[in-house]
């Protein structure tokens, strides 16, 4: 596709459940980012991939959060034992590292933990 695609667009789950959020970046973009955005706040950095490896995962809040990008394209953000505080919009972005860092964002996955 032409842009960054994220699925699902909405996910409602119960506390304690496991959730996977998927991101399909723009074709050819080597860098992929996950951000989390709460209401009234700016996007908060979670993790950055360069190719298949996580170059910076310093934003992951705890070990319940994990992300993979096994083939250097699609990425999955995994959240174990979800808590109500995990409710937010999870944004994915990609870019070409040759440029100055302009990020192309998807529309986000809205996660609600009941």
């Amino acid at each position, binding site marked *: 596709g032409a842009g960054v695609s994220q699925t699902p667009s909405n996910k409602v789950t119960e506390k304690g459940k496991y959730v996977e959020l998927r991101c399909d970046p723009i074709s050819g973009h080597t860098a992929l980012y996950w951000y989390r955005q709460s209401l009234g*706040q*700016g*996007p908060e950095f979670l993790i*950055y991939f360069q190719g298949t490896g996580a170059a910076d995962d310093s934003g992951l809040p705890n070990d319940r959060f994990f992300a993979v990008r096994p083939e250097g394209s699609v990425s999955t953000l995994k959240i174990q034992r979800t808590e109500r505080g995990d409710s937010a919009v999870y944004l994915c972005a990609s870019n070409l590292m040759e440029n*100055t860092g302009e*990020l192309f964002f998807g*529309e*986000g996955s809205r996660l609600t933990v009941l």
Partner: protein
Amino acid sequence: SQKIEQNSEALNIQEGKTATLTCNYTNYSPAYLQWYRQDPGRGPVFLLLIRENEKEKRKERLKVTFDTTLKQSLFHITASQPADSATYLCAYMNTGFQKLVFGTGTRLLVSP
């Protein structure tokens, strides 16, 4: 640590006026600053980038300035239109060029 601050209060202006949004940073000057627009329920969309050694950058009705003395970037929309109503986010790339750090954003409302 570096912090980036935007006015959390919404800015209300009348159509046709110039909107000016402020982004302040606390410590070192970032290599460059970026501005994004975000509409409700949508992902941010890149608008403009300005480098540390650039004073001003323009794109159509948009203008961004970068004042390293004041540690501030200003974002201007001239001849504002109701369609400009959105949240505008300021962001800087950290020194390792590995992550973009965002401010909280400022909501702009342009009334007809």
